[in-house]
Each structure stands twice: as structure tokens, then as C-alpha cells.
């Protein structure tokens, strides 16, 4: 019953699976942070994730090699990113709407391939748990933080790495300048198109990996529409986190912890309507967007195509 929720083992379980469930959000949202920082809103994340999830699962299922699956997801995601970059950078298409197009494409295509190529729901043996020596033996913390599969560790490691790349490198400076003032960046000799191609392809690749983290590490199956809106949340998390990797991580953890809580409520058979609990993070996101929209500034050139004056 409800008191079960507050036993130590259950609390540890909730926190541990919350950390694990944050993985797909992190990959997708960090990738999206790069695109948005350069001024491109990629709303096709969900579609890229679905295709990535399928590619990873299919390759891992047929070859038995999980890392080949990861590579496949990365390539498929990057190709979707390439298409998105071409459409938004060269053709100046409205970013929000073309993103919906890519979402529908990924949704339909992954379903089509699933039905034609796999046919039924299969399972793979996903990435195993890697216990970090010594740390995983810590009481409480060990089980929460240091007994996860490799993709979880990489996802969290990417948070400081992304921060470093964006804020402390020349590449990051270029990305930020293209996102803030493309005209000025262009006049200083930065190729706006090239930077945006790079970030959107990177974002696509990371969305693909986000999908793979679901299909060959978290759930170890592929099903139609298995991401069920997660990619859209990832886009919102970038706003939620005010375009900073640490903020994005905070948002991802809120969503994943609530998901985890809701799963445990179902497992324990507690008669609380979980629908209401699942609703909370979305409402919270809207509230955060309301309060932050006035204070935090988005990249000035976000969603604005750049046309070079000849």
C-alpha cells in the first residue's frame, strides 16, 4: 500500500530507475541543445529517435553486436539530421513545420520497417549492467548511481562535455555566435551554413542514440511508436533547461523520476490513478516555461533562416 512507497528498498529502486530512465532524454536533449544554440529548432527528434531505435535493434538482433547497433542508430540519426539541415539551411523551410514532417516520416517509416522486416516483437539481450568497482558497493548511493549499463554513464558524462564544448572551445563560440547573430558571425568569416549543418547532424545522431538507448539498453524490444512522445519532451527540456546542459539534465531527471515513481506505483499495485501523476511533469514544464520565458533569453536567431546578402 502507500506506506510501501516509503520503504528504503523501494525508494532506492525509484531513484535508481529514475537515473536509468533519464538516458534517452539526455542524449536527445543534449543533441537538441547544440542545434538550438546554433539557431535551428529541430522538432523531428521523435522521428529520428524512432528510426534510431529500430536501426539499433535490427542490427543488434541480426548480428548480435550491440555496438554495431549503436553505430547504425548513429548513422541513421545523422542522415535524418542531414536531411533536416538541408531543408532548413538551404531551402529555408519553416523549422517547426518541417520538423513535424520528419516526425511523421520517422513514425511511419520505423513502423513500416518493423512490420516488413521483423514482423513480430522480438527481444535482444541489451547492454548489461556495469558495476563501477568500489563505488557500486557503497550503501544506498552505490545502487542508485553506480550499477547501470554503459549508456547511462556515457549520457551523464556528456553533460559536462557538452557544457565544455559549448562554452570553452572555438567550435562552441562559433555555434553560439551563429545562433545569436549569424550576420555578424558571417562577416567574421564563420560559415553559418557549415556550423548549422554540423549541429543539426550532431543532434540527429544523438537522437538516434537516444532511440538506441531505449531499444537495446532500457527496454530491449522494438515496438511501433515506442518513444511515445519522449522526443517532443526532449525538445521542451532544452527550453526548460534554458539552453544549458546542466539545466537540461535537471529537467530530464524530473521527468524520469516521475516516470519511475509511476512505474513503481503500478508494480506495487497502489490504487492511485497514475494518469494524474504522469500529467504533472508536463504541467510543471509549462509553468517553468512561463516563469523562465521572461527572464531567460533564447538564442536570438532561433528558427530564423540565414540568407547571405550578396
Amino acid at each position, binding site marked *: 500500500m502507500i506506506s510501501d512507497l516509503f520503504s528504503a528498498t523501494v525508494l532506492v529502486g525509484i531513484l535508481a530507475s529514475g537515473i536509468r530512465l533519464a538516458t534517452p532524454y539526455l542524449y536527445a536533449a543534449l543533441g537538441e541543445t547544440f542545434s538550438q544554440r546554433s539557431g535551428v*529548432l529541430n*522538432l523531428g527528434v521523435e*522521428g529520428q529517435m524512432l528510426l534510431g531505435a529500430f536501426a539499433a535493434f535490427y542490427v543488434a538482433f541480426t548480428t548480435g553486436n550491440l555496438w554495431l547497433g549503436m553505430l547504425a542508430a548513429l548513422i541513421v540519426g545523422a542522415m535524418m539530421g542531414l*536531411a533536416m539541415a538541408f*531543408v532548413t539551411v538551404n*531551402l*529555408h*523551410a*519553416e523549422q*517547426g*513545420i*518541417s520538423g*513535424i*514532417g*520528419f*516526425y*511523421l*516520416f*520517422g*513514425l*511511419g*517509416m520505423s*513502423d*513500416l520497417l518493423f*512490420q*516488413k522486416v521483423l514482423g513480430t516483437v522480438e527481444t535482444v539481450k541489451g547492454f548489461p549492467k556495469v558495476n563501477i568497482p568500489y563505488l557500486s558497493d557503497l550503501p544506498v548511493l552505490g545502487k542508485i548511481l553506480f550499477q547501470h549499463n554503459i549508456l547511462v554513464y556515457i549520457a551523464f558524462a556528456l553533460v559536462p562535455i557538452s557544457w565544455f564544448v559549448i562554452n570553452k572551445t572555438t567550435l562552441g563560440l562559433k555555434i553560439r555566435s551563429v545562433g545569436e547573430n549569424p550576420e555578424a558571425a558571417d562577416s567574421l568569416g564563420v560559415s553559418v551554413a557549415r556550423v548549422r549543418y554540423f549541429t543539426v547532424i550532431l543532434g540527429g545522431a544523438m537522437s538516434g542514440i537516444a532511440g538506441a538507448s531505449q531499444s537495446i539498453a532500457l527496454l530491449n524490444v522494438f515496438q*511501433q*511508436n515506442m518513444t*511515445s*512522445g519522449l522526443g*517532443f*519532451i526532449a*525538445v*521542451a527540456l532544452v*527550453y526548460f533547461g534554458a539552453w544549458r546542459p546542466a539545466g537540461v539534465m535537471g529537467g530530464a531527471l524530473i521527468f524520469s523520476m516521475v516516470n519511475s515513481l509511476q512505474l513503481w506505483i503500478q508494480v506495487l499495485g497502489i490504487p492511485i*490513478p497514475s*494518469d*494524474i501523476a*504522469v*500529467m504533472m511533469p*508536463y*504541467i510543471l*514544464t*509549462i509553468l517553468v*516555461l*512561463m516563469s523562465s*520565458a*521572461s527572464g531567460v533569453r533564447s538564442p536570438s536567431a532561433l528558427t530564423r533562416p540565414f540568407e547571405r546578402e550578396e
Partner: protein
Amino acid sequence: MKKWLKDEWVSQFVDTSLPIVAALGAFALGAVMLLFFNVNPFEAYGALIRGAFGSWNSVAETLVKATPLLLVGIGICISFRGDVINIGGEGQMIVGAILGTFVGLNLTQLPGWLGIVLAFLGGFVGGAIWGGIPGALKAYFNVNEILSTVMMNAIAVQLMNFLLRGPMIDPAQAELASKIPQTARLQDAFHLPRWVPTRLHLGSLIAVVLAILVYILLWRTVLGYRIRAVGQSPHAARYAGIKVKQSVVLALLLSGAFAGLAGVTKVYGVNYRMITDGSASGFTGSAGFNGIVAALFGQLHPIGTIPASILFGGLLVGANKMQRVMQIPSALITALNGLVVVFVVSSEVLRQRRQRHRLAEKMKEVSQNEGGVPDDDSREVGG
């Protein structure tokens, strides 16, 4: 001058046919995919077309599927013309249907026609609330409407699941172990009249009438003029004394209201109850997204959206036939719809560039005529 007129006509024609070319491009790519699966694309598309328009019954089914697309689509025309991107059709359909169904299940004493009218009103209000909230958030809190409408979709799904599994569940299902999330069946008097033996219902006609009304609203009223002016240039509109914030809220609110009506037609015209599989598309059939496709294909014009909805409704119906006959999953159509959106949006910029170019040419011509006899060089440029 005559030649210029002719050129003008030709380029207008090119502009209007761009979406069609874009769609053909998408289907050509689809044909390549079919070849990849060892399926003859002509046979597959043949089955698709026969499935959609091959018999009176299939035409009726096409129109049934087209109805929610059209209603969502005319809402999309309003919002996109008003510089607001409404991705929240799914949620607005759901909340509209919830309110509409609530009316029909509770006001059982009413005569049939009045019950239906009130149900539509409920759907309109439900959708308007679900669209109006992101509208107000955008206007007064500067919250990006793409994100807020996506969030509102997710909230609507949970609300639907909560109500259809809890307070609004069909009493018969509540006793069974399966507990399918659905409401009780509406009483017969509240069913929209059907063209028996098909499933074509009055909602389709209502949708067409509303499309015409939305056209009048957008191009023949001050309100519509304001919405479009804000869509063209918010800054210029503000200088012209238009209250931009109100216009943004109104555009999203109306957009949501029509999506809400789309939800009501599904309940009162097709299923006679609200039912889902726990996902948004389980109730909407993704009409909230496909309506965007139809509206874009109809060049964001309510009248153009009518044939566009019939086309995309036909694709949905034909896809089922294709699946049965050729073993090609109907998901192919979802993928192709996505490509159509990408292609149409990409060609839109081409169209605008051509328009700007034409305008520049025209200006040049005007200035030449004013400047007296043009010399040979400029005539070459102008021609």
C-alpha cells in the same frame, strides 16, 4: 505588356501546382521504397486508389475520414495565417470530444437535435480552452506555442485516460476485467444522421459549411483581416493599431475550437461513444497531425483544404486496402504524409522567392514606364 500578362498567368499556375508536384515527389520516393520491398508500385498505388475511390462505399469511407482532417485543417488555416503554429490538434480534439461526450451522456432528456447542437457547442468550447491556454501563454508570457501545444497534447491524453478509465468509464466495462477505456454509448437520438447503408454522416456536410464560413471569416471580416495582418507582420500590424496579443490568442483559440469539433464528429458520427487504446491516436487516428498536412496541401486556404482533406482521407482509407491486398503496412502512408509536409514546406520558400522576384520585376516595369522610353538594356532586363 501582353507577354507579361501571359507570364504572370503561367507563374501563378506554377505556384498553385507546386504542392501537387511536391506530393508527387513524395509518392515517387514511396515507389522507390516499394520497389525495395519487391512490390510493384503501380499495383500498390492502384490498390490504394481503388480502396479510396473504387466504390460508393469506399468514397463514403473516404469522406468519413476526411471530415476530422478538414475540421482540424481549417483551424490550422486560421492559426498558421495568424503567425501561430498549432501542433496541439490532437489534444484539442480530445478535450473537445470529452466535453461534447459529457453533454450527450448527461443531458439525456433533450430532443435529439438540441442535444447534438449542445454537444457541438461543448466540443467547440473544449477545443477553444485547450487552444486558448497556449494562446494566452504565448501572448502574455512569451511561451513558445509549439512547445506548449505539445505539452497540452500530453496532458489531454492523460486526462482522457483518467476519465475513460475512471469517472466516465462505460458501466458495462467497469464490471469486466478488460476495462477498455471507453464511455457508455450515446442514446440513438443523439447520433448524427447517416446516409445508410454507408457510414457517411451529417458531420461531413457541417465541416464543408464551416470551411466556407472560415473562408468568409478570414477574408471578408475585420477580425480575419486582423489575424492575417498579424501573420504577415506583427510589427506592421501593431503600428496599424491592431491588438497583436488578442489576435494571437484568438487565432489559437479558434484553431483549437475547430479541432474540438473534429473530436465531436468522431464521437457523434462514427463511434457513438468515446473510445481509445490509451494513446492519443487511439482516439484521434492522428487527425490532429494529418489535418496539418491537409491544410498545408490546401495552401492554408479553407476552401483548398476541402479537396486536400478528401485526398488525404482517401489515402488513409486506401492504405487499409493496400495493406490487405499487397501486404504493405498502412504505416507507409504516415511516412509519405511526412514527406509531403517536408516537400511542401520546402517548396513554399521557392514560391515566396518567385513572388518577390515577380514583384521586383513589376516594380522595375512600372518605374520604366514612368521614366519614359526605356533604353534597350533595361528592356532586356524587364522582359
